[in-house]
């Protein structure tokens, strides 16, 4: 309720400030104009292709992050020595702007979705791996003892004890991983790409076409809000079922 009120207030303020010229039209156009632009952009075939490209890139990057990040987290937990050795590298990877490698990857792989997927996936992977490791570490030793005492097989141990116990703790990392996949994808597209929502926003930015640039930015915002809402709902469900 309060959130919607804040949002409405924000839109009204933007509308007023842009219309009265308090914010220069070169920086930002009014929400009503963005909406008008969206109405004409969204139905086009080109928008469909851009959106499809961006969404598939995000999903592929996130899937890679998940499929590699969770086993990596498990490995870092299972082999504490590896965890100790690798952790500084991973944390550095976390802190470093990976996008610096983008030009190199473009040169090697060419101007396609490959370099973007690679960067977005590596950004997505890190929080997932780190939270998986931390979550597994924080499981009470008694649960290991219990699993052992009932002669659980390794498979049963993971599926019936470890993952259910760790899931509520891993989930925030997974959520962060998804957000990083979105950021990575859109940012790389913005810098240089042949297609995609981020690419269009960057294209119009360089064309000084503020209205269309904001229309595409609005698409990214709406997309992020939607995804976040879905993930938050999923997280609540998991927590309710598991805690």
């Amino acid at each position, binding site marked *: 309720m309060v959130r919607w009120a804040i949002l409405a207030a924000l839109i009204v303020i933007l509308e007023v400030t842009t219309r009265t010229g308090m914010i220069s039209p070169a920086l930002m156009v009014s929400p009503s104009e963005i909406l008008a632009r969206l109405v004409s952009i969204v139905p086009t075939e080109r928008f469909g292709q851009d959106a499809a490209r961006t969404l598939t890139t995000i999903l592929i990057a996130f899937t890679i992050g998940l499929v590699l990040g969770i086993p990596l987290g498990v490995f870092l937990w299972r082999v504490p020595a590896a965890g100790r050795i690798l952790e500084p590298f991973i944390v550095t990877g976390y802190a470093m702007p990976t996008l610096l490698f983008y030009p190199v990857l473009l040169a090697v792989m060419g101007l396609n979705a490959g370099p973007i997927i690679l960067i977005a996936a590596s950004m997505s992977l890190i929080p997932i791996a780190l939270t998986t490791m931390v979550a597994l570490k924080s499981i*009470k030793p*008694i*649960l290991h*003892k*219990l699993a*052992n*005492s*009932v*002669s*659980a*097989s390794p498979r*049963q141990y993971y599926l*019936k*004890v470890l993952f*259910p*116990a760790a899931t509520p703790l891993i989930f925030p990392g997974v959520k962060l991983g998804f957000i990083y996949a979105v950021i990575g994808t859109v940012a790389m597209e913005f810098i240089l790409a042949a297609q995609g929502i981020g690419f269009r926003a960057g294209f119009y930015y360089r064309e000084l076409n503020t209205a269309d640039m904001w229309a595409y930015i609005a698409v990214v915002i709406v997309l992020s809000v939607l995804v976040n809402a879905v993930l938050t709902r999923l997280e609540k469900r998991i927590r309710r*079922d*598991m*805690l």
Partner: protein
Amino acid sequence: MSQSPTMRSIGHENDVVFDNIGMTFDTGAGVTRAVENVSGAIPEGKFVSVIGPSGCGKSTLLDMVGGLLKPTQGSVSINGEKVTGPRRDTAMVFQEDSTLHWRTVLDNVAFGLEVKGISKAERYDSARRMIELVGLKGFEDHRPGQLSGGMKQRVAIARALAMEPRVLLMDEPFGALDQQTRQFIGRELLRIWEKTRNRVLFITHDIQEAVYLSDEVWVMSARPSIVKEVVTIDLPRPRPEGTHALPRFRELEDHLWALVKVEAEKTLGPGARLA
């Protein structure tokens, strides 16, 4: 009324047999001789309690029987087979809360059977019976978060009982409970055990509890621990509520107190109380 453990005839085939078992922990920080030269047996159908000062190696002993720890000396055998790891015919109850918080009471109690690969219908059937036995009927669909400490321990006991173990190992299962609850659950446990009559190794620091429940009480010495004395509890079974007031009960209790006090003073200094 008491015998030295080494003097006893050791090892009927169906017993849980300790053959000069010992455990030394070698950590970076130093070497701890937790258990040393324990020999003895839990005869078929007997309830054995172990008491001794805190840190003397009671949990270590139990974990070795459960196959969770490999003894550094000697061995344990059950039904004539050497224990090399967790066995399907033993079940354990731990001092800490070991319920799986994301599972319902029913699925917690069925957990051991589920791991054994028992079908859903069958394991739920046993689980429901055990839930009733431990007095948790009506709580099948609750999650541990909604239960008190005593109820969670009853879930853990029901889980162990549902596995129909031939050897039941309990490590201070009522340790975290208040006096009233532990007496109540103790009576319940005994009532259930009268029916199953499996071999029980029960660790406690409560002497009254040990006397009330057991056929034998093993008194462990301070570290490095040996079983210093085996006290046979010759109180008739079944043991109704008034058992605590019997003169024989008091006698056994006093005798155990005297034994334990000596050990507690060794670890903690004179005047110390049993931890």
